């Protein structure tokens, strides 16, 4: 189980191989990819800029991953989230969950994504062709 905040995400294929090695009981691997959407209320999005309180964000991501792993009895979890500038169409984050069966995997994945958005001290500034705004939590 690991979490990472980084300017450059790992290769997704490598992450999948990494979680596959964690157990022979894995029957499902769920993957979420967050992508920079091209449009916003302000117009065409050029990029998102992510600011992070790294110490708190790592602490919170580890707490969420550990808590979800235990509650849903999933086998492995990897979370990676970018910091800094991310251009339109690029990948922002990966959440990968490995589980015995798909049911608990889907549930764990959804909870991780929702909690990351609500609890982890990461903030995004949306820069568009007409200006920018800090996206409200």
């Amino acid at each position, binding site marked *: 189980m690991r979490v990472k905040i980084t300017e450059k995400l790992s290769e997704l294929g490598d992450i999948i191989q990494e979680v596959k090695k964690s157990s022979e009981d894995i029957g499902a691997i769920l993957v979420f990819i967050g992508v920079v959407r091209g449009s916003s209320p302000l117009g065409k999005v050029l990029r998102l800029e992510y600011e992070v309180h790294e110490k*708190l964000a790592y*602490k919170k991501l580890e707490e969420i991953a550990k808590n979800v792993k235990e509650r849903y009895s999933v086998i492995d979890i990897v979370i990676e*989230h970018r910091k800094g500038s991310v251009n339109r169409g690029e990948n922002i984050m990966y959440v990968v969950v490995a589980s015995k069966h798909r049911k608990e995997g889907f549930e764990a994945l959804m909870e991780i994504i929702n909690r990351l*958005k609500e*609890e982890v001290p990461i903030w995004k500034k949306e820069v568009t062709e007409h200006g920018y705004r*800090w996206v409200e*939590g």
Partner: protein
Amino acid sequence: MIVNDSSMRLYVRFYARIKEEMGREAVNLNVKGSAMNIIDLLRILSKDKKMRKGTLIDYYLQGKLLIAVNEEIIRRNEEGKLILKDGDIIDIMPLPSGG
């Protein structure tokens, strides 16, 4: 003669939109008094500093702040219970918007 001036040094850091609206990354405060909580601190920081949609204390009352003391996040509505100490580091942040 020993004089006890009951003052505290606090280091306050701002993040993201809050940093931008306060116009600074951090501030060192030397405050009088020893029984101060986070809400008291927000009132001090709100004096003479109007932000885009109110003051820091307004943002707090609207539930729009996430606060940590010495890198421990303080649960909402517990801010009044924690008494700050000399040397504390307080992080004042907007609600998360990652992902």
